[in-house]
């Protein structure tokens, strides 16, 4: 298959157009199905493809902004979007994103961004994933929820709904009454995570809407996408203000997402809420493993970093750690020549670092391809059953 390598003028990286479109498509399917932007897939994948972390985050934000418009329109038609709830969450999210992106810039200055972001990523991915699996399997049956439907709100949501700090708002689409402060609190915390981790916030907000606010899974998916649309745009704007968006890559991914997002949204019609949550939880765990692989790669990088730094800075003329890493990705010939003059343990560490980085990216890409294939299977099976039912009718 002929492949087109695109040069990214702002991030200064080269990347395959096919990979970008594939990434956009799979994340489009997954995002439309789970109600997330899919940054937990896109950010590490772009980072593996050679984007420095801050550019990977900013580019992903821009891609999320465009893609969530497509998914939200679809979910609105399916009656899954609670606009009132979504609008209420936007203010808290905006404040949270700004604080989160300020924290990223500060960490970038002191050169600890990759390690800190990845550590928090892993904790959140494993924490949320494990809790959702517990809730969808053992936890759900202990509460006696009938055949895994969404009718009874989770225990935490019932407690949150009992907190009657005025003003109290009635959400008709979600079918519940809750204090506005609870909604703002959830929005601010998830917004901070969005700005800090470079995600639309969906992978935290979708479960938060189900488990804390108490909406059904499908309304959580649709409403979250509505909110991701705004938080993605706000995030893209703030990252672009700092020059950290590669708009060409975002557009190419968006082309793939345009095909995938409606498929994911349609699939929610044919799958029960708990099954959506279970698939979501498994995705979180796989994403967590991928980030651990990346962290192992970082450990190997630390082994040779001092020597590379001493040689690379005067050679490249760049100052920041991320910039130097990026320079090594682009100037492979020069790096290989330097590497040939180094002792065996340095060469070994270099090879292992590249290998673990690749495992991380390929695991995420593979998992997202498998998951989007499963979602398309759910969709096809549901449509076939529906058409068989209408034929019998």
């Amino acid at each position, binding site marked *: 298959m002929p492949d087109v390598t695109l040069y990214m003028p*702002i991030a200064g990286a080269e990347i395959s157009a096919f990979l970008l479109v594939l990434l956009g498509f799979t994340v489009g399917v997954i995002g439309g199905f789970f109600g997330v932007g899919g940054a937990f897939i896109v950010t590490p994948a772009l980072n593996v493809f050679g984007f420095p972390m801050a550019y990977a985050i900013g580019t992903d934000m*821009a891609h999320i902004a465009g893609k969530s418009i*497509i998914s939200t*329109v679809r979910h609105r038609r399916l009656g899954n979007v609670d606009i009132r709830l979504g609008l209420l969450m936007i203010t808290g999210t905006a404040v949270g994103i700004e604080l989160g992106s300020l924290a990223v810039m500060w960490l970038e200055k002191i050169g600890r961004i990759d390690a800190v972001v990845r550590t928090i990523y892993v904790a959140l991915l494993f924490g949320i994933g494990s809790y959702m699996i517990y809730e969808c399997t053992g936890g759900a049956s202990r509460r006696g929820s009938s055949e895994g439907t969404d009718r009874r709100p989770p225990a935490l949501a019932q407690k949150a709904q009992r907190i009657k700090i005025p003003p109290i708002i009635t959400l008709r689409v979600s079918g519940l009454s809750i204090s506005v402060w609870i909604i703002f609190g959830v929005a601010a915390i998830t917004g901070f995570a969005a700005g800090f981790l470079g995600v639309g916030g969906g992978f935290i907000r979708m479960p938060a809407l189900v488990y804390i606010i108490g909406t059904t899974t499908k309304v959580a998916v649709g409403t979250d996408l509505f909110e991701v649309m705004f938080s*993605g745009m706000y995030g893209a704007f703030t990252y672009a203000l700092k*020059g950290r968006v590669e708009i060409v890559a975002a557009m190419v991914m*968006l082309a793939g997402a345009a095909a995938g997002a409606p498929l994911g949204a349609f699939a929610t019609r044919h799958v029960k809420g708990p099954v959506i949550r279970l698939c979501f939880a498994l995705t979180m765990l796989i994403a967590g493993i991928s980030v651990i692989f990346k962290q192992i790669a970082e450990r190997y990088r630390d082994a040779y970093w001092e020597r590379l730094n001493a040689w690379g800075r005067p050679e490249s003329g760049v100052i920041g750690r991320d910039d130097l890493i990026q320079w090594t990705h682009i100037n492979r010939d020069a790096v290989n020549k330097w590497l040939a003059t180094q002792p065996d343990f340095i060469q070994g560490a270099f090879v292992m670092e590249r290998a673990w980085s690749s495992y991380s990216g390929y695991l995420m890409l593979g998992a997202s391809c498998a998951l989007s294939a499963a979602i398309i299977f759910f969709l096809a099976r549901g449509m076939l059953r529906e058409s068989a039912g209408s034929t019998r009718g």
Partner: protein
Amino acid sequence: METIYHWLTELSLGNRFAFAVVTVLTTAAAGAFMALVIEILLRLFSAAAAKTEA
């Protein structure tokens, strides 16, 4: 293409506010356009399916 690349690079390095506005408008316009195309295609498909069923 190269002119666009050059212009984007200059913009991202020079006028960051304009770059941010261009980024948001471009992604929003692209997303809205694609959503519109998908809606039109779905309506065409469902109209065609209804016709076949009839």
